[in-house]
């Protein structure tokens, strides 16, 4: 790839007069030696899987094998329509879809790791709800996935994307940043605005620990995906409104590396601390062990 940082990415887009998604497709094709059509087709398939996961999560029983989680997406969706939600509207829809995909993941259904399985709900939640709302074509969404991938590529190589390495800020945080930047571009924002959206979003998840109860990708992972989708929409709105990330986004990514590296092991996916070690978290873990 011809860029290692978000500022290089934005400059490159400006020089070539193209968006982040289009540029990433070109770079990807150059790297892999496969045609742009082939690479686009693979990403299209992935988008198909994301849609399928949203649909399954909204219509099927997603109770996980542990029995701890499931069906929250459908609860939120029906509350969105039947009651007077605090959030509701497009944000409520994005939240429901994000929960849906995460629940499908927890119940061993098919998903796309974006960037990981623990954070797989955020991008589909944001993308599908916005596609329905704005009437965008599938191909437009697929180019948005390339934009999200470009942002994730920079974050992953300059910091981390897995909870075991950098806490949940790395996992859910990266996905929020990717979704926020991509959505900014999809809504007509410039590459520079998209990059600001990434920084704004990442700032809001700095320090988030990875503390899955019982070590399972369920509690609190699923609801964090729901919250994440809403945060991504908010960050895109701020960037589109002209809010800038005063601390440049590349510097925020470095802060994430610093904070994640300083996290004790108990807060990095080991279930040794945080919510996993609360009295209830410990009880759930004991019950799971006895069930086996």
């Amino acid at each position: 790839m011809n860029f290692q940082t978000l500022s290089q990415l934005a400059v490159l887009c400006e020089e070539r007069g193209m968006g982040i998604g289009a540029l990433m497709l070109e770079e990807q094709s150059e790297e892999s030696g496969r045609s742009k059509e082939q690479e686009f087709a693979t990403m299209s398939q992935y988008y198909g899987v994301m849609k399928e996961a949203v649909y399954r999560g909204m219509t099927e029983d997603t109770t996980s094998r542990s029995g701890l989680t499931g069906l929250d997406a459908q609860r939120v969706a029906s509350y969105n329509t039947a009651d007077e939600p605090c959030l509701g509207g497009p944000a409520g829809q994005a939240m429901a879809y994000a929960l849906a995909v995460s629940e499908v993941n927890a119940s061993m259904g098919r998903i796309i790791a974006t960037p990981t399985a623990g954070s797989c709900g955020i991008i589909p939640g944001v993308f599908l709800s916005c596609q329905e709302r704005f009437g965008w074509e599938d191909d437009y969404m697929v180019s948005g996935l390339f934009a999200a991938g470009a942002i994730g590529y920079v974050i992953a190589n300059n910091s981390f994307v897995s909870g075991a390495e950098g806490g949940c800020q790395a996992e859910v945080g990266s996905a929020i940043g990717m979704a926020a930047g991509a959505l900014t571009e999809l809504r007509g924002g410039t590459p520079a605005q998209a990059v600001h959206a990434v920084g704004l979003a990442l700032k809001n998840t700095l320090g988030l620990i990875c503390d899955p109860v019982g070590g399972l990708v369920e509690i609190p992972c699923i609801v964090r995906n729901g919250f994440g989708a809403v945060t991504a929409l908010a960050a895109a709105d701020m960037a589109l409104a002209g809010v800038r990330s005063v601390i440049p986004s590349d510097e925020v990514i470095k802060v994430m590396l610093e904070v994640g590296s300083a996290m004790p092991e108990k807060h990095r996916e080991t279930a040794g601390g945080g919510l996993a070690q609360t009295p209830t978290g410990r009880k759930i873990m004991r019950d799971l062990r006895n069930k086996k």
Partner: protein
Amino acid sequence: MRFKDVFSIIGPAMVGPSSSHTAGAARIGRAARQVLGEPAREAEVTFFGSFAATYQGHGTDRAIAGGLLDFATDDSRLPDSIELAAEAGMEISFGQGTGLFPHPNTVRLRLVGAQTGTELTLTGISIGGGNIEIVDIDGFGVKLTGMYPTVLIQHMDYLGVLASVTEVMRKGQFNIGHMSLDRKNRSGAALTVLELDEAATPGLLYELRALSAVKSVKVVDLNESAQELKGKDDTP
């Protein structure tokens, strides 16, 4: 760069719940199946570290079994793979290992081939986002990710073997992206691993097998999704 392309960030398509514990494990199992070169009739699976602590909750055992059946990370049969392995006549056992291991998510496999009775031991680690490394094959130190079409050549450690291998590559216009060689002892058994830019053709494999010092040539490529594999089965 740890992450090389867009699909190491968006993707893989996988069956949940954890890209490290499930998708990564499935890829390790599948890589082992490809290195064995035939279905396994026995599989002894030993988990270490975080894999050992949480493999049942994450379905890591099912993912490994699915990989050993050559399932891709997004194969919908993965949740039922232990039962499917039994039906296919594979005796599979799972255990928790102790002692030293190279990474928090490590699995060691001992396989016996169903057709030839060949034994294989292999150690794989799951490094996050579904990405893996195979670090040991039959006691040879290796580093292979399966993200590139990979050729494994078992050969004797004679002078000039590598030169003849790379000459075959040059003639066939195959570019080598990464290469490693490990040997048991001087003039003894050796294993060379080549990561290529393009998939190896039958012609290339034939030429490599024809080299006098070469004992066997195997291919590992984990890029195919379940849909592509299904398409392959459909072709007569």
